[in-house]
């Protein structure tokens, strides 16, 4: 990495201004697009089996989050890592989980539809707030919602990317950012950076 003053000295085409970053990184670009999650809808016959699938998906999500939380505590401070602890608490939320289970039983619809619908209700409440802080919390919840749905679909998320690249992403969830921090990522370029206050 060359510093700005080095580059400035060597350069023939100079632009004056204040640098917001400590230097310049040059590496191959890697565009990270999250695999789009499609939420299915459909009727179920076996409610017990559906509830069992839900419990499994929640347990799996907890396990994943626990791992990410431990990783976060080693790569950043405890206050920043606390976001993952909050996500784990959402998985233990008695009102939310009971509502989801009750709706599966009553509406006899597949769990992923109910999970998506129920959590989206809360997200819409947060998005309608005038406080930017609240709007951002809706984004945090997206992470946990998608995690449960993905586990219900028994899919895995991509967690490995090429090394020594500059990651370009529209937006990154906190857990994506943590997984990238484990790899040798040179830099990060976020198109919607304002949603995420996180550094690698």
């Amino acid at each position, binding site marked *: 990495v060359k510093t700005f003053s080095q580059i400035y000295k060597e350069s023939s085409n100079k632009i004056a201004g204040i640098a917001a970053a400590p230097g310049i990184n040059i590496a191959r670009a890697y565009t990270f697009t999250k695999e789009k999650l499609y939420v299915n809808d459909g009727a179920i016959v076996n409610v017990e089996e559906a509830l069992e699938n839900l419990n499994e998906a929640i347990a799996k999500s907890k396990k994943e989050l626990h791992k990410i939380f431990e990783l976060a505590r080693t790569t950043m401070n405890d206050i920043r890592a606390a976001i993952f602890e*909050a996500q784990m*608490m*959402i998985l233990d*939320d*008695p*009102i*939310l989980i009971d509502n989801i289970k009750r709706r599966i039983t009553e509406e006899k619809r597949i769990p992923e539809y109910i999970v998506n619908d129920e*959590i989206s209700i*809360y997200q819409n*409440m*947060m998005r309608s*707030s005038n*406080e930017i802080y*609240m709007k951002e*919390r809706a984004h945090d*919840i997206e992470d946990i919602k998608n995690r449960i749905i993905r586990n219900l679909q028994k899919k895995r998320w991509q967690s490995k990317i090429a090394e020594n690249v500059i990651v370009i992403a529209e937006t990154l969830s906190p857990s994506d950012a943590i997984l990238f921090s484990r790899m040798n990522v040179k830099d990060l370029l976020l198109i919607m950076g304002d949603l995420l206050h996180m550094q690698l």
Partner: protein
Amino acid sequence: MLMGKSIIGVMTLVAEMGSELILSFKGEDEKEAAKEIIDYFNRGFDEM
């Protein structure tokens, strides 16, 4: 009315600064719980 044990409920309460809240405690350790929460509010949620 919402249950304090529900983190998502507390989040969507959208209790912004200056909001007025009425808290009630019920249970075996209600006195201790109330004392803890009052302390927590008075400490500025450990953020001040």
